[in-house]
């Protein structure tokens, strides 16, 4: 809400500079989005009087005007506005002026005729086009006749004001009004308030109830009041009122609509005026809509209503979306002579739902959603009637017709000084606390530090002691509250084993050259269900925003591939990423919440390190990612043998270059090449990856970290090279070597593998280095030779190898 500082000053004696005021409001009440000075940046814009005008010799629409701007000679200004007329007081941007958007006005020639400035419309000097009254929307603006020629124009049209833009939190609906804001500032600055109240003369001859009948569902409208005004002359509002509206961002329409909007700004009470003669049966009914009913609203939208909508209807049909927007057909027009003025409260939830359903969010709905002051509903009605009676020469018929009134009572809240100080950490005296409540306009009874506080209806946000603590805290000032740290029993702060292992996982993978990526957990249905390590039902959003984010992921790899694709599309070809995050599994459709499982995955495409003068970039391969997987498993210290088994079970992975990883017989993840078809779909180069169920690794038993004695005795090694069938795996060979290697075999190391030239078809040459060591004695050659022979023989027997 834009609050006019000038207007505010009518209610309390404030003189602080507006920036200080804004800062104070922000620190004490609600956020301030900014301070607007409508005349900021404007220069040399003055009142002028058009003394004479002639048609431009070379134009069919331009006029050459002689304009008195308070100088010795009139200024000659060429003007193209259709409404330019002799004798009018106008807005003149002189030579050297700055107008809206920092545009500079200079002396110039328009089709050969000198023009010493520009005659302006309101929008041209910075008043938002959307709030310029219709009559001034196409042409220059006429200032009041008594405007003094040569004066700056700003004060005549309210541009010398300062507007504070309040961002009111949902609980402080009371501050969506001048009166509410004035109450708040009176409390903040401890100032007396000077609010005015209507003094309405009911000068009509009829009773309102003779003219109109109102019935309401008081679940929808706890308060509903109407007045009828007759013989209304619908015309433009006086300038002062128009200024208040346009400075608040509301477009002046006519004296009836403007009066309701003005009262809304002043009291926070949204109102509506109906054309009495358009109301069938001369009655108003507040009710739920009937499904299928039609209502054209003021924004000229045709709305088909549902039964949950709330409406104000006449005898036949809805005439307003209750609390949201009036109907088009019953609006007040220039032909209207009799109006029904409504001041009501509507249920906040029902208004909110109705507004949401029809996507109509108005100043009225915003206020009803946050609540309005139930205590001033009728005063607001009188205040609006008073203005319309005056500006529209209308007759106000006697008495208000009240269809509902909830007679809301002030709230009584009990608390104590000690509790207040205990919660806030302050040491305020009862005098200080009482004074704060009094400044807020709350009635206080205090006895021995116990408080009974009576909160006026206009502060409907306050119900419980905690609400009062907040009032004390903010009026006392958060700056004045001491700074302390919680004093309590010592607690141990440490990461759990799971948290530590997750951190370690990140450190290991970053050390191995992979960068931490965070991808979206919500992904497409296809991606969510790819690279699945287990069966799972997908978890889907009921109303997704886009098809890219419909389903919770059941793997991390698809997210990483999306990232790889993003990079490669930008010519970043070396991409090594990992992600640690959750996947979401469901065993069955009726599982309420999915199980959230920590996973870790990585991908490498291109080279881990860039090409350099002393170093060639290498293409990734299976063994590179396997190496990283090995490293991770080793660093996580899981106990048990790690085994890689070739698998073709993943449709998204290369069937010949993928392995399941087992630890102690348990499947924990897989490594391999992304299937070329999938890579093609993602538009990425050959990519290798792995994905682990990190939770399983975390839950697995861990190896004891115990020191082993390093043998003092030297080790001996023997190399064996052999030709073997290509189909025999490294794993098979190593198993045989280990099985037959004897007690002193400590390590088997593959150091060469070769196929092709010089090797018979179907064979490969492999070479291992076997290390023997006796912890307690020096190995004797004889023993080593014997053990080595056994291995050689076993390999010959098992795989028919040819020793080379």
């Amino acid at each position, binding site marked *: 809400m834009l609050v006019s500082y000038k207007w505010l000053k009518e209610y309390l004696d404030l003189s602080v500079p507006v920036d200080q005021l804004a800062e104070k409001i922000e620190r004490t009440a609600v956020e301030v989005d900014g301070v607007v000075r409508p005349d900021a940046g404007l220069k040399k814009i003055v009142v002028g009087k058009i003394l004479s005008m002639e048609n431009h010799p070379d134009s069919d629409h331009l006029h050459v005007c002689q304009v008195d701007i308070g100088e010795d000679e009139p200024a000659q200004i060429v003007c193209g506005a259709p409404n330019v007329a002799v004798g009018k007081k106008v807005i003149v941007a002189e030579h050297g002026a700055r107008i809206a958007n920092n545009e500079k006005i200079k002396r110039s020639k328009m089709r050969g005729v000198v023009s010493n400035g520009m005659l302006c419309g309101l929008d041209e000097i910075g008043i938002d086009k959307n709030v310029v009254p219709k009559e001034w929307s196409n042409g220059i603006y006429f200032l009041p006749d008594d405007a003094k020629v040569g004066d700056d124009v700003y004060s005549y049209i309210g541009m010398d004001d300062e507007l504070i833009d309040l961002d009111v939190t949902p609980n402080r609906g009371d501050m969506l009004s001048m009166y509410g804001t004035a109450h708040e500032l009176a409390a903040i600055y401890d100032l007396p308030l000077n609010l005015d109240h209507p003094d309405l003369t009911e000068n009509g001859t009829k009773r309102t109830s003779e003219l109109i009948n109102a019935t309401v569902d008081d679940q929808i409208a706890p308060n509903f009041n109407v007045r009828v005004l007759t013989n209304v002359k619908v015309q433009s509002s006086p300038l002062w009122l128009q200024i208040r509206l346009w400075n608040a961002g509301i477009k002046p329409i006519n004296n009836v609509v403007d009066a309701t909007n003005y009262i809304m700004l002043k009291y926070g009470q949204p109102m509506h005026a109906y054309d009495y003669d358009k109301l069938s049966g001369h009655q108003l009914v507040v009710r739920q809509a009937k499904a299928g009913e039609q209502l054209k609203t003021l924004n000229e939208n045709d709305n088909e209503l549902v039964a949950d909508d709330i409406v104000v209807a006449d005898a036949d049909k809805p005439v307003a979306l209750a609390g949201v927007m009036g109907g088009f057909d019953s609006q007040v027009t220039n032909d209207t002579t009799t109006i029904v003025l409504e001041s009501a409260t509507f249920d906040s939830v029902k208004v909110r739902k109705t507004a949401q359903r029809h996507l109509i969010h108005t100043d009225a709905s915003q206020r009803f959603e946050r609540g309005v002051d139930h205590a001033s509903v009728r005063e607001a009605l009188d205040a609006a009637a008073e203005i319309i009676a005056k500006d529209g020469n209308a007759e106000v018929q006697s008495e208000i017709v009240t269809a509902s009134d909830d007679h809301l009572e002030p709230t009584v809240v009990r608390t104590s000084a000690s509790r207040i100080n205990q*919660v806030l950490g302050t040491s305020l005296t009862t005098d200080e606390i009482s004074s704060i409540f009094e400044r807020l306009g709350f009635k206080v009874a205090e006895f021995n530090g116990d408080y009974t506080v009576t909160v006026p209806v206009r502060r409907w946000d306050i119900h419980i002691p905690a609400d009062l603590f907040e009032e004390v805290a903010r009026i006392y000032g958060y700056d004045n509250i001491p700074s302390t740290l919680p004093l309590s029993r010592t607690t141990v702060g440490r990461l759990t084993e799971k948290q530590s292992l997750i951190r370690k996982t990140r450190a290991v993978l970053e050390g191995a050259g992979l960068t931490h990526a965070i991808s979206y957990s919500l992904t497409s249905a296809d991606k969510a269900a790819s690279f699945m390590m287990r069966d799972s039902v997908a978890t889907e959003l009921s109303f997704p925003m886009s098809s890219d984010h419909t389903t919770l992921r059941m793997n991390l790899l698809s997210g990483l591939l999306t990232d790889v694709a993003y990079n490669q599309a930008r010519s970043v070809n070396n991409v090594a990423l990992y992600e640690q995050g959750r996947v979401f599994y469901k065993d069955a459709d009726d599982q309420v919440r999915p199980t959230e499982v920590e996973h870790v995955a990585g991908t490498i495409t291109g080279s881990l390190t860039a090409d350099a003068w002393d170093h060639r970039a290498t293409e990734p391969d299976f063994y590179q990612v396997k190496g990283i997987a090995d490293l991770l498993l080793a660093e996580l210290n899981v106990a048990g043998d790690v085994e890689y088994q070739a698998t073709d079970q993943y449709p998204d992975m290369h069937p010949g270059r993928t392995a399941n990883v087992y630890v102690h017989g348990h499947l924990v993840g897989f490594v391999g090449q992304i299937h070329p078809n999938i890579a093609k779909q993602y538009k990425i180069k050959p990519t290798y990856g792995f994905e682990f169920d990190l939770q399983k690794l975390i839950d697995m038993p861990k190896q004891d970290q115990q020191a082993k004695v390093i043998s003092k005795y030297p080790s001996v090694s023997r190399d064996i090279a052999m030709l073997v069938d290509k189909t025999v795996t490294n794993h098979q060979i190593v198993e045989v070597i280990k099985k037959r290697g004897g007690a002193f075999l400590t390590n088997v190391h593959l150091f060469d593998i070769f196929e092709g030239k010089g090797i018979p078809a179907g064979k490969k040459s492999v070479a291992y280095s076997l290390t023997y060591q006796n912890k307690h004695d020096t190995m004797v050659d004889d023993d080593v030779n014997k053990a080595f022979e056994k291995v050689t023989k076993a390999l010959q027997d098992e795989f028919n190898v040819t020793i080379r």
Partner: protein
Amino acid sequence: MSLKDELSRIHDDGLKAIQNATDIKTIRENIKVKLLGKKGPITKALRGIKDLSVDERPKVGSYANKIRDDIQTALDAKISELEAKKLNKQLAAEKIDVTLPGTPVAKGHPHVIQSIIDEITDLFLGMGYEVLSGPEVEEDKYNFEMMNLPKNHPARDMQDTFYITDEILMRTQTSPMQARTLEKHDFSQGPLKMISPGVVYRRDTDDQTHSHQFHQVEGMVVAENITMSDLKGTLELLTHELFGQKFNVRLRPSYFPFTEPSVEADITCFNCMGKGCNVCKGSGWIEVLGAGMIHPNVLRNAGVDPEKYTGFAFGLGPDRLAMLKYGVTDIRDFYLNDVRFLSQFN
């Protein structure tokens, strides 16, 4: 020629030869062997001592020894000199261009949001907080109802929600961890002090400042006599530790259904250090987190007596902090994982 004169001559000639030598090999193989070897003149001379008189023997003997030592010393010195020369020559030849780039080492980078979360986590661990993580797919009950946001509460509109069913949703905040933790905590074992970092989701269209997925860190302390001033002190400490002593904290009233009083905390603008600029819209302050004293309804909903226990809670956004701290202008950068972006942070 007397033996002594003979030795003198050997001495002078020997030193001259050593002086003139230019390579180690010559010295070792020729000069050394020639002069000091078994067949060398000194050995020979020493053998001749026996022919001298008893008086002369010791004199000549010690003279001979002296000469041998002199020659040895001269040899050693020459050899060192030549070795040093040779080494210097080699080192000079081995000179490289040290300005050539180093061999690349594969290096991954931490995600900047993770780094901020870790930093915050470590700070609170140091103060005895436990670190908890909760489900990202949450029950309406924990995300909203127990947090004092019953169905139809207007504040639910502040957080557009991804629903999975009527009762199950993507958590919109880490605050449900308040309810989950309060429900379980045994206050006889001491105060409840926790932080809970995690991923949250909002039904937002992704743009420069909105992301349907982002992070939050929830913090909460509940015990007897926890005060608003404890909250203030904690937030000040967090700010000073995370950003530095130059940064100040400003608390402002705000509104959250699960805290009362509720505040928003602003810190000194990173860009202008409080002078006022377009980043902070001229105010000198940047909003970084929401906090407050836990609403009695939240405590009560979780079975904690709000008369006996009080507590504070805060929630901050690592994404926003990272954007402010590192000048990131588009939140989507955190989730698109462009390695050129990610590898800027270490």
